[in-house]
């Protein structure tokens, strides 16, 4: 068995609202070749197994794994495609290395969201076909109902949710890879059109195209490949009930469970004390607040107030989504979790450019699979 696993290479392409100049294969290649070069590995010779994440309905191709190997250097090699978030892919790659069967494993995720012309209609296919879909609601209603219950239970306000949008889109201005940087005031967010109350249209991340590849290695292999291995100290993932009828609407218990799994492995008892910064779900602004509470950083009802007070800005006590998050760089479908992990890797390496945080040693990554799911994953990384 390999006891420790490190991220030894990262590469990405994007993120932009559209990428008409490249096919999805070319976008993936762009990210992959950068990751392999960063890690100093040759995928044909050195990478022993490949994990990718993709959802067939988003790609427009069934059994999408068939269309992955050539542009990743994975043809005629051990590979698999997971229908899950990028963090599920990272967790799987991590476990492949832990088994001791593989020393170098690559993980990939991408989004060609611009190519899917009927995003809302396809998302509706995530609703239960017999019980929920015949009611013919746009699936954003799930976020509206969840936000409504979350605000009700915690006393969080719409303005506090809007503060997440202001923070993250402002952060994105310092991230050259972000598609949706903006300098907004609270009132700009709150005065936008309603989507599904209490959720406003401007509290929802727009989609973007992009691709991310990472190379993972055992401790022994990592020593030969890099001076700055980023260690995966823990990973966890969890799904709650799919049932809209009986799920706990106010809280993200799946994130709490996933975090506890990751915290156990990383031996973390007090996350706020140990973790220096976090990249977490913000596909909807309220999710960032709900998630920070689910992760145990704050008690229910605290995240909104602390966010409005600047606790989670880059200069705050716990910087959250310094990258700009999904609101800032765009919703990347299954690549979302890897995009969040990418920012944590860059920060821990000291390669985050003008948005570099000082003295960071431990970062948390959390990702959510999107409406209408209760599917979340968490990873703890350190330098």
């Amino acid at each position: 068995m390999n006891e420790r696993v490190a991220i030894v290479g990262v590469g990405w392409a994007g993120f932009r609202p559209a990428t008409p100049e490249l096919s999805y294969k070319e976008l993936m290649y762009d990210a992959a070749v950068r990751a392999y070069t960063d890690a100093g590995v040759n995928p044909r010779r050195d990478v022993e197994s490949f994990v990718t994440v993709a959802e067939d309905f988003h790609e427009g191709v069934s059994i999408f794994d068939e269309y992955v190997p050539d542009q990743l250097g994975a043809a005629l090699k051990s590979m698999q495609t997971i229908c899950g978030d990028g963090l599920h892919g990272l967790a799987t790659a991590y476990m492949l290395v832990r088994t001791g069967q593989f020393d170098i494993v690559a993980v990939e995720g991408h989004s060609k969201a611009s190519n899917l012309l009927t995003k809302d209609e396809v998302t509706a296919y995530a609703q239960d076909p017999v019980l929920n879909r015949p009611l013919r609601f746009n699936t954003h209603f799930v976020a509206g109902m969840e936000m409504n219950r979350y605000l009700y239970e915690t006393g969080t306000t719409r303005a506090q949710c809007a503060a997440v949008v202001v923070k993250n889109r402002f952060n994105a201005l310092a991230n050259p890879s972000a598609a949706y940087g903006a300098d907004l005031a609270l009132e700009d967010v709150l005065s936008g059109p309603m989507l599904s109350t209490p959720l406003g249209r401007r509290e929802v991340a727009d989609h973007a195209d992009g691709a991310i590849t990472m190379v993972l290695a055992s401790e022994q292999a990592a020593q030969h490949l890099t001076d700055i291995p980023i260690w995966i100290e823990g990973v966890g993932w969890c799904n709650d009930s799919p049932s809209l009828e009986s799920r706990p609407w106010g809280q993200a218990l799946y994130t709490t469970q996933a975090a506890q799994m990751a915290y156990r492995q990383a031996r973390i008892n007090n996350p706020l004390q140990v973790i220096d910064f976090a990249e977490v779900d913000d596909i909807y602004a309220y999710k960032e607040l709900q998630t920070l509470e689910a992760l145990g950083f704050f008690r229910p009802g605290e995240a909104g107030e602390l966010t409005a007070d600047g606790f989670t800005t880059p200069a705050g006590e716990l910087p959250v989504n310094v990258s700009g998050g999904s609101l800032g760089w765009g919703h990347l479908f299954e690549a979302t979790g890897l995009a969040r992990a990418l920012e944590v890797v860059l920060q821990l390496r000291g390669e985050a450019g003008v948005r570099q945080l000082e003295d960071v040693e431990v970062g948390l990554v959390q990702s959510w699979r999107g409406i209408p799911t209760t599917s979340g994953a968490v990873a703890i990384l350190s330098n």
Partner: protein
Amino acid sequence: MTANIKDFPGTPLSEKDFKEGKILFNHDALKGDFAWDTGIAIGSYLAALKDGVILGAACYTCNKIVVPPRTVCEWCFNPMDEYIPLMDSGTINTFSLCYVTWDVKRIEEPEIPAVIMLDGASSLDSGPIMGGIMHLLGEVEPEQVHIGMRVKAVWKPPEEREGSITDILYFKPIEEE
């Protein structure tokens, strides 16, 4: 199910049972509209088809030519060296006589999908040659088709081409002298 088996276990369903609502089911159809960016390689390929040319991509490290072209060689993972026009004739690598249509109708006269190793792709003769195009055969008696048969593309008239794989109507046998 085969007619040779007389007795099937269970209760058979009839069209009438569905019409009378004895069987409950939900019907729904997916609305998935996609517009895939063709990008550099496939975009070049489709543009060339419109001009009546089949493009391949060559990697001179691996001595391979692939159709359609790509930007990266899947064997050595380096960028492809160049896109090159290939002949629109070639040799059948494999084929099948298909008696069921795309929309699942049984047919008497089979459709004939085939992979054709294009002439010009075979100019690189060390290592496996990957210059095959996936298309269909026409103007041929099904029983005449065989592996190794020489065929040539039949194109749509230039004014009807739209930059699509269907700009080639089919491949037909070359009359050998």
